[in-house]
């Protein structure tokens, strides 16, 4: 039994076992990054897909081949749609998230922590396909009857569904950020004769800015990577969107429908991995931004 082991050995066992866990996770992540990068980059270096074409071309069609024998791999429509959906959903969710966070922290703190927060956390737990299902039946129908469009599928319903999905993430983090502002700031401001609203606007929000920005970025990360809920309401046409209610396709939805259709190692398959690499690159950039904000915030606070 463990008791018979000398103390130092025991300590080494502990270090070894836990260290192995960490090493395993790190290795898996490294393998994942390496593999996605390798598969994705081989589209450009092995199959000869032009990087410029990939980022600026507007024609995406893997089923047909152009004169050079390669499929049409202009991913710009997918990139534009992904960003459009992300930005639009953030614009919808942001005021609501920060507004309700202010209410839950500054105006009705008791109601906020006892009723509002548990309710919002309930939203986090709802699976994304359920959001998609509601989007497919309710939001799409709403689009049809409000805007008199033929299918009701497109970027706008996608953004609305995503806005509801990222709302809990953004709200919860904003609430945490506002709670972290020391009460002395508020008291000082009120003592100077500011109203509650002025205090919130000029003092609380300003000093909570880094955490609020982190909340926004994390919401955007989730919106950028969300797949199935968007697939159910966006229409799935890989072409440059002409309006908010024209069917489109994001990077993730293209992956869902095209992945595993083409043989492994084919140019089509590799280009899809390049899309995966792009998704991974974006999430790494988001992490980087969050770190930069954190560092800046720490510096500002001294």
């Amino acid at each position: 039994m463990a008791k018979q082991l000398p103390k130092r050995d025991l300590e080494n066992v502990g270090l070894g076992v836990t260290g192995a866990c960490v090493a395993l996770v790190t290795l898996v992540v490294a393998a994942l990054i390496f593999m996605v990068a390798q598969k994705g980059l081989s589209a450009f270096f092995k199959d000869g897909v032009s990087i410029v074409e990939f980022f600026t071309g507007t024609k995406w069609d893997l089923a047909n081949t152009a004169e050079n024998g390669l499929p049409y791999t202009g991913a710009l429509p997918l990139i534009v749609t992904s960003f459009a959906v992300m930005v639009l959903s953030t614009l919808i969710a942001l005021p609501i998230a920060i507004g309700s966070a202010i209410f839950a922290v500054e105006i009705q703190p008791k109601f906020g922590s006892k009723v509002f927060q548990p309710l919002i956390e309930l939203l986090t737990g709802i699976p994304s396909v359920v959001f998609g299902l509601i989007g497919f039946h309710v939001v799409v129908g709403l689009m049809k009857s409000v805007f008199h469009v033929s299918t009701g599928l497109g970027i706008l319903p996608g953004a609305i569904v995503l806005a509801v999905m990222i709302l809990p993430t953004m709200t919860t983090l904003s609430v945490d950020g506002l709670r972290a502002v020391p009460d002395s700031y508020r008291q000082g401001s009120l003592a100077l004769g500011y109203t509650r609203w002025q205090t919130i606007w000029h003092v609380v929000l300003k000093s909570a800015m880094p955490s609020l920005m982190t909340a926004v970025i994390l919401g955007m990360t989730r919106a950028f990577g969300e797949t199935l809920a968007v697939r159910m309401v966006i229409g799935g046409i890989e072409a440059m969107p002409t309006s908010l209610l024209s069917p489109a396709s994001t990077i993730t939805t293209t992956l869902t429908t095209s992945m595993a259709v083409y043989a492994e190692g084919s140019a089509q398959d590799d280009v899809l991995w390049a899309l995966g690499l792009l998704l991974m690159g974006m999430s790494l950039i988001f992490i980087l931004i969050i770190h930069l904000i954190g560092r800046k915030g720490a510096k500002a606070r001294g």
Partner: protein
Amino acid sequence: MASTRIHIDEARLGRVQRQDRIATGVLTAIVAIVMLIVVSMVAYILFEGISTLFQPGFLTQPARANGTQGGVLYQLFDSFYLLLITLIISVPISLGGAVFLVEYAPDGPIRDIASTAIETLSSLPSIVVGMFGFLVFSVQLGWKYSIISGAVALTMFNIPILVRVIQQALEDVPQAQRDACLAMGLTRWEATLHILIPEAMPAIVTGIVLSAGRVFGEAAALLFTSGMSSPVRLNFLSFNLSSPTCAWNVFRPGESLAVHIYKIYGEGSPEAQQIVWGTAALLMICVLLFNVVARIVGKQLARRMTAE
């Protein structure tokens, strides 16, 4: 700025107070709308799905005709089975990882690298994890569409969540406890095993159950790993783990409730639509149960520990 003026302008004061009232009003309206959305969403799903849920056979029959008829027995079982295997793999690894990061990792490059890796994993879109799982487990390792492929993909999705929760729980144990243990001559390992982990247990259990809720509803990572179908017939009493009809065989394909919804949401027949809503209601009730259970278990454990 107003504060630099000593003379207070009456009109200005009035405006400022009005501003305050308007802002409060707007915020109240926003919160009301958010709450309305949450409540109406939940109510809508339950309203649409609850009648199917109580229909005889929905929970006790397998799906027929590609999921557009019959029940969701196998999907329900597969969801829990996937979750179970995911937890069996991910909990020990996460626990070890978190202990290392909190108790052993010297502040330095190792800790930084490991934290970055875990953070990267947590921010990856689940579809990317699914693609990786498909390539490595389903194709290269030859596991095909199987429960085990799906569970490993879910593990990758679950580990960052668990590590963070457990790390937080361990960090919340007062430093004095650690110092006391070490002062008594316990090794770090013994201190962790016998004192720190038990102390952090309520928070750890709550975290695990909450993460289970998220795993339970995940679909994108499963599309290409555990597949979009469950065997037509399963034998729950067979323990011949190599038999394709054995429910407990981890190498058979499986389909979770969430994937099932994605598979048949577009099917037009009224019966299929009923099944979709019933499945959605079932999925949501399960996830809500996880939330409630997490809270109750956490509280119970905490109470038992403080009572000692």
